[in-house]
Every structure is written in C-alpha cells, then in structure tokens.
C-alpha cells in the first residue's frame, strides 16, 4: 500500500509500501514514546543510580522491594484482567446483542465506573465492608452488627474486587465496540448448532471478538498493575504492597532511581504478558466479522432469561456505578467525611466565602478559576483525544493489517508501554527531552503543544488497543476493494476503515478524553501555572484537606465525561445507519 498515490511509470525499485508505513509509524513512536522511556532507563544507569538495580533485584531488600510486591501485582493484574473481561464481556454481549430491557441505560452505566476515580470505588467498598482494624468509622455491615473478617475488609480480596469494579468498563467499552460489528449470521450458525446462550457467548461471541478481549485484558491488566489508590487504601493496613504503591512511595521519599528500576521491571513483566496476548491474536486465525456480504446486525431474544439477566446487569451497574457516584456526591456535600449522609450543604458547590467553613474557601462555582479551568480542561481533553485517536488509528491499522514480524512486534510493544510508566517520570522525561529547542524546532516548554504531545504519547495505548481490536474485525477484502478503485491510503482509511471501526475508535477517544481530564501527574509537571486544569484544582483542594471541594470537582469531571459519552453515543447511532436492526 502506498501512502501517496503517485501515478506514473512503473519504478522497478519501488520500496515496499507496507514497510514504509511501518517505518513511519516506528519513527513516530520512537519520538513520542521510546525516547522518553530510554531517558528514564538511562537515568537508572548513571553511576550514582546503577546500584539501585542490584538493590532492587538481588540485595537483602529485594524480597520486600520487588518480589513480594511483584507477586501481589501479578495476582492483581491477572485477576482483574480475567474478572473485567468476564463481566465486561457479559455486559457487552447483553447490551449489544440481546433484547435485554433498558440496554441503553445499562450500556451507559457500564461505561461509567472508569470515569469515577478508583478511590471513590474503594471508599464505597469501605463504607460497606470496613471493619474496626484501622479504627475510625466502620462500615455499614459492621454497623448492622456483622463481624467482617480482615480478608474481606483489607488486602487482596477487596482490592481485586474494587479494581474489577473500576476497570471492567474498559473491557466493556472495547468488547462492546467489537461486538457491535459481529455479523449476526455467525451467532445464528451457532444457534443452528443447538448451542445455548452461555455456550454461544463463550464459544463464539467472545472468541470471535478475541482481539477486543485481548485488548480489554491488556488495558485492564495495565490499569490494575499501575493503580495506586485502591491498593494503597485497602492494602496498606495489612501491609500489602504492590509495585505501584512501592513505586509511588520510592519516588515520594526521594529514592527515584529505585523507583524507576521498579517501573522498568514492571514494564518488562507486563511486556511479557502483552507479547503473549499478541501471540494469541496474531496467529493465522482471522477475526473478520465485518464481511463484504453485508452481514446483518440482529438482536437475539432472551426469552425467559430476559428479566433474570437484566437483574444481574442492573445489580452490577448499581454496585459499581450508583454506589460510588452517590458516595462521591455525598462527600462533596457532607461537611464531615465520617458522616457522609448528614448535614448536607451546597456550600462546597456554590457557597460564598465564609470564614468559619474551610478557612473561607468559596464553593467551586464561586471560584473564578473553575469556569476557565473547565473550558481549558475540555479543550485539552478534546485536543488530546483527537490527536491520540488519529495516531492510534494509523498504528492500529498497521498492527491489524500487517501484525506479523518483528517490526510489528516492536510497534505493538512500544505503543503499549506508556500505560505502565509513572506519569511523573514520563512528564519529567518530556521536559528534559523537548523542553529545550531541538535543531529548528522551538522549545516547547510550558506550551500547550508539549502537553498535547505528551498527553498523546501517554494515552496512545488506549486508542491503539481499541482501534486495533475493531480494525481486525473488518475483513481485509473491504480495504482491497477500495484499493482497486485507486483510492490512496489515507482516503481509504477515512472512507472505509474509520466508518466501519468508528465505534471502537470513538470508544478509544472517549477513554482518552476521560483519562486526560483526570490525570494529574503528567499535567502538573508539564503545565504552566497560569493555566489551571480541573485536576490540578482538585489536587490543590485535596492537598489542603478540602476534600469536599476536590470531590465536587471530581463530580464535575464525571458529569463532563458522561456528557461526552452521551454525545458520542448519539453521533454513533446517527453515523451508522447500516447497523440499525
């Protein structure tokens, strides 16, 4: 495939278009991702820091520094990935392929947990299951007189559950996008074979969307292993450490080199998993479910199971979205974090400055910054979502259409790495690399552009993974028939691949949007003080102990995210008339 359509005489020494495209992609990734990562690596190799490697991997501290947290992390990663794929896959199937009632609502709710910060989900867990180990307020169940054992209050089990409750929506989003394009005759063929619903789901629907399942598993795995809030809140009281809490702590107490070594090791381990996942989907199998024979999208009737399955879905949504959202909203209204449902006041939202409350902080809507910050944050979110989706699309296209060989392997791995790099390290590397002028390029320090580029690189994995999963489902002959017309690469991408994969691309874009809206570590390092974004404002409040204000801002972010989701769904429905059934 050629990037530019150069008509003219045959040139016998033409270089292979596919190779060119791969090299271009690799160059982009090299600049965006590999360079900052290498910088982090080199930082651990400097004479003063290199000892960190032996400390972490083999010294007497290695057990507590690395091995035990690594073990916990892997359990979390694998457990969360499996749980998320199962729950997300189940809900996606229910929403996309069946006639379950209120499926739009379920579909919307299932995308929310990822937009709710994981600390809120962890708090929700605590407010139900917390026991007296730590002291302070105990949870609802102990309040009823039940005695909750430590393993249910603290440590691995609640962390796993909370992380699954938080991340399954990622898997849902990706898998739902893929399932929306599954030709219903594949399912019908399974029905004809006499298979029951569960068998069809596990035997045909999920396997045929395997790229999406793997993408969902990869993203949730990475999310779980790098999540700090949940293990810190729920694991620390029983001294459960993960790589993420270790990493955060080491950077926080100034042992940066050790922290970066841990990060690099985490990346290496995750890369192994990613490689395995990639191996599974880049074999000879095809996952082309959108074929050139105009497949129908049909909903399957659930019959008697309709209400029970709806109940299950509703329960999941209730537990993972409504409860945390209520807690979040309550904690933006309640003066005391230990009595979330009493003495509610709108002060933290709209109140004017009152010296007796929160040192005279006015409510967030009375804060002049909040409006400009909201605009700015959304601008940043939209800009990053667009650039990330565009670059992710091209990377995903290359991986999906030509995913074999070492070059593709490298592209795949490199484009996934940013997910595992601590934002602060990534941000620092970006300042160091792009802060100063490079050749003809001006210094980007303190500009919106730097944030845009860094945000793009940082969030690329989301769009690559989601994009790849859906593009793999578009049968190759659809692109080939467009090649026959003489259309160039970009033209085909825009007219054929993008519309067919649009649901997945939109899902990826939405995740990126939500993620950058909430991200702090990257933004705080790269942004200039004069341009506050919402997450920074929330951080300011939180760091002074004004959690209600911080939570109010989190709710604002959540509302924006939901609005964006609704908008995307709306556009989606309009732009895909052929999918109506």
């Amino acid at each position, binding site marked *: 495939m050629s990037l530019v359509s150069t008509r003219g005489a045959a040139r016998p020494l033409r270089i292979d278009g596919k190779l060119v495209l791969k090299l271009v992609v690799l160059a982009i990734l090299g600049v965006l991702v590999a360079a900052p990562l290498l910088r982090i690596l080199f930082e651990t190799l400097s004479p003063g820091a290199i000892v960190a490697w032996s400390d972490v991997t083999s010294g007497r501290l290695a057990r507590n520094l690395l091995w035990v947290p690594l073990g916990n992390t892997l359990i979390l990663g694998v457990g969360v990935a499996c749980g998320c794929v199962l729950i997300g896959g189940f809900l996606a199937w229910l929403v996309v392929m069946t006639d379950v009632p209120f499926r739009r609502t379920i579909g919307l709710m299932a995308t929310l947990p990822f937009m709710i910060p994981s600390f809120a989900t962890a708090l929700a867990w605590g407010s139900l299951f917390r026991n007296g180990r730590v002291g302070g307020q105990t949870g609802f169940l102990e309040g009823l007189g039940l005695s909750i054992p430590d393993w249910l209050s603290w440590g691995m089990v609640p962390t796993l559950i909370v992380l699954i409750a938080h991340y399954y929506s990622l898997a849902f989003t990706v898998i739902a996008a893929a399932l929306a394009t599954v*030709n219903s*005759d*594949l399912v*019908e*063929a*399974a*029905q*004809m*074979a*006499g*298979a*029951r619903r569960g*068998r069809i789901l596990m*035997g*045909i629907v999920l*396997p*045929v969307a*395997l790229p999406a399942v793997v993408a969902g598993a990869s993203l949730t795995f990475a999310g779980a292993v790098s999540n700090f809030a949940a293990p810190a809140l729920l694991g620390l009281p029983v001294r459960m450490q993960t790589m993420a809490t270790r990493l955060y702590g080491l950077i926080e107490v100034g042992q940066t080199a050790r922290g970066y070594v841990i990060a690099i090791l985490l990346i290496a381990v995750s890369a192994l998993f990613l490689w395995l996942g990639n191996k599974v989907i880049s074999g*000879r*199998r*095809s*996952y*082309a*479910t959108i*074929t050139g*024979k105009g*497949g129908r999208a049909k909903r399957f009737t659930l*019959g008697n199971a309709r209400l029970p399955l709806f109940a299950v879905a509703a329960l999941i949504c209730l537990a993972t979205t409504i409860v945390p959202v209520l807690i979040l909203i309550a904690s933006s209204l309640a003066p005391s974090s230990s009595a979330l449902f009493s003495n509610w006041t709108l002060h933290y939202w709209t109140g004017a400055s009152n010296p007796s409350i929160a040192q005279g902080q006015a409510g967030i809507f009375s804060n002049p910054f909040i409006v400009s910050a909201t605009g700015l944050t959304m601008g940043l979110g939209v800009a990053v979502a667009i650039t990330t989706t565009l670059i992710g699309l091209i990377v995903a296209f290359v991986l999906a259409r030509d995913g074999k060989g070492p070059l593709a392997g490298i592209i795949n791995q490199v484009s996934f790495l940013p997910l595992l790099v601590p934002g602060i390290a990534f941000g620092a590397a970006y300042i160091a690399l792009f802060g100063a002028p490079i050749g003809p390029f001006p210094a980007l320090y303190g500009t919106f552009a730097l944030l845009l580029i860094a945000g793009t690189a940082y969030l690329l994995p989301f769009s690559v993974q989601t994009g790849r999963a859906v593009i793999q489902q578009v049968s190759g002959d659809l692109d080939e028939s467009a090649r026959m017309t003489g259309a160039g690469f970009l033209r085909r991408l825009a007219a054929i691949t993008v519309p067919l994969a649009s649901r997945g691309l939109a899902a990826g874009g939405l995740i990126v949007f939500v993620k950058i809206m909430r991200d702090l570590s990257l933004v705080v390092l790269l942004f200039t003080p004069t341009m506050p974004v919402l997450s920074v404002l929330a951080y300011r409040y939180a760091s002074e102990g004004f959690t209600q204000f911080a939570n109010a801002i989190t709710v604002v972010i959540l509302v924006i995210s939901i609005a964006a989701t609704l908008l995307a769904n709306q556009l989606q429905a309009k732009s895909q008339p052929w999918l109506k059934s």
Partner: protein
Amino acid sequence: MIRIENLVKSFGAFNAVDDISLSVPEGAFLVLVGPSGCGKSTMLRMLAGLETPSGGTIAFGDRIVSDGNRGWTIDPAQRDTGLVFQSYALWPHMSVAGNVDWPLKIAGMARPERQARVAEVLTMLGIAPLATRYPNEISGGQQQRVAIARMIAPRPSILLFDEPLSNLDAKLRVEMRTELLRVHRATGATSVYVTHDQVEAMTMASHVAVLNQGRVEQFGTPEDLVRNPATAFVATFVGTPPANLVPVSVLPRERAASLPAQASAMYRPEDLSVSAIPIEGSLAFDFAEASPVAGRTMLTGISDSLRITAVVDAAPRFAVGDKVHFVLPEAPAALFGANGERLS
C-alpha cells in the same frame, strides 16, 4: 412433515414472503427456485427459526414451531434443523475441523466419535486435507464445502440448504449432489433446498416450489413444472433451457392467425429450428450466442427486449449481429393470457 400456512414476512412495508402455503411429507426433498430476491433465503431463515414470521404458521409434524400471528417462534436450538447459510457464516477463528467439530461438541458427542464424524464428512466433501486451515486460508468453493460439512455432521432431522453448491465447479457439483442426496436418504431427513441450478432442481427434488416476488407461482413435482407450467413465469423460468414466450402480436401472421391477440405463445427451444433466410413461420432475431449443449447447439437471438432460444442439432456459424431466423412450429406448446395465466 413440514406444513407452511399463509406465511408472511415483511421488512417495513415490503413483503419479502407474501402469503405462502405449502406442505411436504416427511422425507421429502423440497427445492425452492425463483429469481434473485424472491424470498427464498427468507423462507429458509424462517424455517430455521432465525426469523419470526410477520404472519402465518410453520409446523414440523404436528408441532407448530413458528406462529407469526402471535409473534413467537421456537428457538433455533430446539428445532433440530441445520442450515447452510448463503453467506457460509463460517466461524473465522476456528479451523476447518474446528468449525465442523463445534456443533458436535454442543450436541454432547464424545471426543473420539466426534473426531471420526469430522473426518468422515470432511472426506466426503473432499476437504480433509484442509482440516487445520482457517477459513481465510481456503478458496471460496472450499469454504462452501466446509459450510455444508458443518451443517450435515450432526445429522439434523431437517436440512436447509441455501444455494449450497453455487461456488463449486460443475463436476464437483454433480458429485456433491449425489452425496447430499445420500445423506438425505440415509438420515430420513426432510430437506429444503434453494438452488439456481435447473439440473440440481430437477434431479434432486421430490417437490419443487417456484417462488416469485414472495409468492408461490407453482408447486409440484419437477416433471409437472416442465411439462405443465401453470403460468408464463414458470414456463420461462424452468427448464434447461427454459421455454420461449412470444407475444402473439409479434408472431408471424401465419402463426398468429388462430390465437387470441392479447396472449403469449410458448415454444420449447427444441421445437424450434433456425434458418439463415426468412421462411414460413420464421421470426428474425439478432444472433446473440451459441453454445454446445448435450451434443446439440443452443442458439440465442435477441430482438429488442425479446430473447429466443432454440436447440438445434447442427447450426451454421453465426457472428454477433447476424440476423438469424427462428422457425416456429405450427402450434405453440401452450398459451398464456395477459396476466400470465395459462389459457391452453
């Protein structure tokens, strides 16, 4: 036994299947033929339970399996039917053997038995060497055979075929139809078979239904249809080659004489002869094509929108555009009225 009563399927305002009633006994081999878009696949999909009728009923034996008037249909899984999809609908993520094996697994068959069955049907369809390939690694005709293998392996008691041999070469098609008939007979199943191949329809069918625009034009045995087409549509649709229908108004005067003016006259191709010069009872056409069939030559001529075909023992060589004079027999084989109804 399959009994279909007043079956209707509409997509919006459009009736893809429009009030069809017919029934065939158990063990029958019902062939559906009809022009592209007449509702054949829709019929099969309703028989399979994949589509709920908009009206009418389908009964297998004494059991009503779909009732369009009440809007319900028994789940495909509980009908013991198999369907070869027109689009194959192979599972792209399973190998050829995997595709055939999965339904057997669902049926709860033991592993060794399954392996034997898979090997058996793959061999029967000549695709055993491809067992480990994936659907995207085999040719169109090979894919089609995998679709057939997958359907017949569990030996369902109702076999539904949607143009199952359309992408096979003539030789293989002849062999395959023998195999399919053998399966049909061996299992005592009832089959419904959609095809565009006249020879297939004639040799395989115990019953043929000719559909047109969602309705049954004629339902009967293959011989019936060829010998006694009930409508002009059937006359021009069935047969290799099908009969010619010439409006009385364009007939040579000597042939039109005793016929009603509004009618159309049917002539069988083998009753025509050709001549290089106009003679009595001849009509001039532009030569279109000639092809050897069964040791004879099939000649086609076109004149405006009228197309005529003659099968002759020996034909002079014509070039495209030559005038050919088709000589009509004294009396037409049948006469049809203005609305296609048979007059005599």
